[in-house]
């Protein structure tokens, strides 16, 4: 039993030494701290992503953010969704990518269009796993000098196939 587990672990480790960039898609779910540009208010989002690869160095990504906390207080009913292209630059086990996505912010009473450029870095540790960090700016037009624009930072473990 122990031998089998050790063999499996070793095989996984050895297999993981080969660089494997995603072939079809990758996805993740994580928490995302944010800082609003207007008043420097901190927030926390639940962040989900699914990216489908059109070519080796080009994918389209869909991202869903749900704001869970702002300035230490719980928040509900504010989601933002983004969809757009992402360009990848691979080097061995590394992938530096840049993307630009149109999006929509849904608040309780209205929809607000958004646009979001972002930068991601991935480190492939296994044919099906990678670590990632991402920073994105979300631009939202201001209403009477107040804007929902913010910086969002995500990181963690992602899955790829």
């Amino acid at each position: 039993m122990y031998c089998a587990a050790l063999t499996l672990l070793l095989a996984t480790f050895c297999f993981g030494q080969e660089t494997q960039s995603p072939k079809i898609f990758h996805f993740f779910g994580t928490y995302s701290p944010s800082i609003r540009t207007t008043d420097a208010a901190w927030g926390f989002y639940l962040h989900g992503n699914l990216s489908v690869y059109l070519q080796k160095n080009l994918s389209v990504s869909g991202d869903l953010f749900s704001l869970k906390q702002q300035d230490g207080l719980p928040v509900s009913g504010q989601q933002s969704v983004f969809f757009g292209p992402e360009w990848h630059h691979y080097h061995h086990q590394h992938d530096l990518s840049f993307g630009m996505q149109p999006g929509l912010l849904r608040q309780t009473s209205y929809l607000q269009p958004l646009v979001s450029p972002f930068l991601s870095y991935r480190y492939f540790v296994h044919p099906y796993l990678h670590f990632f960090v991402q920073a994105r700016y979300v631009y939202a037009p201001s209403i009477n000098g107040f804007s929902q624009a913010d910086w969002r930072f995500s990181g963690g473990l992602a899955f790829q196939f």
Partner: protein
Amino acid sequence: MKKGILLSLFFGLLTNCVAQSGDFSLGVRSTFSLFSDDGAGLGSGGQARIRFSNSLNTDWFADYIVVNSTYVRSSYAHIGWSVLYYPITQSRSAAAKWTPYIATGHCFDYNQKTLLTNQAQASRWGSAVQAGLGVHWHLSPKADLTLSSQYMIHLTKEIEVMGPLGGLPDALLVAKGTVFEGHLLSTISFNYQIGKLW
């Protein structure tokens, strides 16, 4: 012999002319609305692109644009199409990374205004024509980034903001007559060819 050469030339030209005919692409887009009476705004949307020949393409788009001003939030839904004409066709510049174009088309729009003071709402339908210039940046044989600017002129009923003299606006009124309103729409879009329709 001459007949053969002429036939070869004819079919060669025909093939060249329709080589990209039927290309079907899907895309997403961000639109910046400028120089309107309401102010500047931002929109998100998508488009389908159907190509009819090497020099003629079409964009079928839908946008949701919001313009925020001091007392009013103005939401626009645009559904329309543009014809894209390439003065320099790709057959003449096959290696080109950039393809400029002239565009013009029609659009239907729905506008809803909301007063931020008391949440009063009014809406109307309208139609518009637009024309402008754009350029495709070819990222690969199937993918491109497109930048365009088109001026759109609406023939529409105006939604007027009403209120007491010197006080905050408290009502919206859809005017009876139709007026011309215009704005510049600058769009950045990403498009990917997913197949051929014919």
